């Protein structure tokens, strides 16, 4: 189970915590004062009050130890920048997701060490544009992949020694064999090159490649099992 520390009392914090499956993630909400912590505790989440500007207090709640992910969702950008810089200095592997109010702060947050920037106004603008120009696709993705239906997106890493190694993308035929649509393959880490499954130069899988798929939860589960076992 991954542990997430959520900083900043906001709609975004509450929504994010309620969206994430509490069987996969455990949360600790960090408020600036007792009133904020009490409001979050009322929703059933563990809540604490610390001074986020103090590294010792960050360590005391588990930054650098058992906290895997940090949500920096303070309303003020400079609080998020300060928290990001402090947390990144303590733990170079922690995943930091930070929200911005002013779009100009995005670069500063990235420079401070954030992995992902969330700009609610930009996202809202994009969404409106999508509904306006491509309503059918937006509806499908909202109701299925991003919604609460059983259709999901998933990623699988090709393990070392897997039977998938050296397989051509075009030979996988996941739609026929596993009821999954293969979107593409990302070489290595997050910023690796994405090879689309369609109309692209042929790509042979190697260990560390990540398959990106869409499909029903049960198909994803059974394919995951197969990928894990096929090299044994």
């Amino acid at each position: 189970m991954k542990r997430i520390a959520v900083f900043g009392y906001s709609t975004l914090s509450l929504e994010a915590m309620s969206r994430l499956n509490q069987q996969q993630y455990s949360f600790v909400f960090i408020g600036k004062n007792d009133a904020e912590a009490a409001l979050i505790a009322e929703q059933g989440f563990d809540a604490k009050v610390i001074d986020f500007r103090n590294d010792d207090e960050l360590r005391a709640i588990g930054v650098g130890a058992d906290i895997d992910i940090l949500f920096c969702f303070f309303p003020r950008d400079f609080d998020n920048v300060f928290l990001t810089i402090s947390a990144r200095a303590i733990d170079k592997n922690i995943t930091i997701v930070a929200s911005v109010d002013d779009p100009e702060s995005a670069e500063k947050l990235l420079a401070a060490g954030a992995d992902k920037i969330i700009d609610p106004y930009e996202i809202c603008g994009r969404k409106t544009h999508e509904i306006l120009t491509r309503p059918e696709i937006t509806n499908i993705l909202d109701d299925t992949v991003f919604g609460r239906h059983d259709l999901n997106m998933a990623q699988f890493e090709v393990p070392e020694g897997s039977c998938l190694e050296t397989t051509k993308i075009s030979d996988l035929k996941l739609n026929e064999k596993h009821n999954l649509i293969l979107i593409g393959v990302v070489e290595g880490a997050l910023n690796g090159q994405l090879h689309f499954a369609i109309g692209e130069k042929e790509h042979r899988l190697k260990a560390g490649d990540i398959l990106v798929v869409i499909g029903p939860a049960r198909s994803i589960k059974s394919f995951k099992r197969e990928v894990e076992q096929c090299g044994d």
Partner: protein
Amino acid sequence: MDELREHSAYAELNRLDDFIIICGFGRVGQHIAAQLEKDQLHFAIIDSREAGVLKARRLGYVVIHADASKNSVMQEAGINNGARAVICTAGDDVVNVYITLTSRHLNPDIKIISRANNQGNVKKLYQAGASNVIQPFEIAAMVAAEYIGQPVAFEAILGIIHEQSHIIMGTLYVYSGSFIDGMTIAGIGFEQRKLMLIGVISANAMQGKYKNSYPLQNQHFYFNPEPHFVVGDGDLLVVMGREYAIDYFRDQIEENRLKGVGRR
């Protein structure tokens, strides 16, 4: 001077027959305008705040300095004369409800997309007549949640949705009499056309016999349909591929339909 500018904005809108009215030019309104400009779609901004109006003018947008909740302003802007959608972007839900209600009252058929800043107001906006309601913080939370779960998959799919890659998602309409009307998925041959079929949206009750069906408003979405799935009039094929490959196939369906009509 202001009156002159206003007059020229109204005159420009009068000449158009397909445009979008954006009410409010704050952070959200600005993002929407930038996207529509990129798409080369026509739009007009209505904002009662001088700062918003000046900013929109500096960017060269058609802008009306007025209160969008007034019937006369929306009528002059063309809500019944060429506008196809109204977007309410205010940070205040009270304002958005009022503009939504005004717009729906003036035009029962127009598409209205409204922002809701507070979850409790979503229902009120639908009651006021909104076609779609967008909640910025709910969507932002979804992005955060999806990102930490499957960052690679999420960024890849987001890139496609936002059309940031050369591969996009598109839809193809199955017209009655077109060559794909009545064809099976296997017969259409998506792979040879360099397209990937994600699924089919259909309101056709006959399709109910197929598996992988997900309810979608008044229709169903059939994910990864089997090779023997037969597409019919009114179905919408959801495909992924290069834009030109999607456009080329769309043209073929259209051309073929026209020939079919000519023969009748």
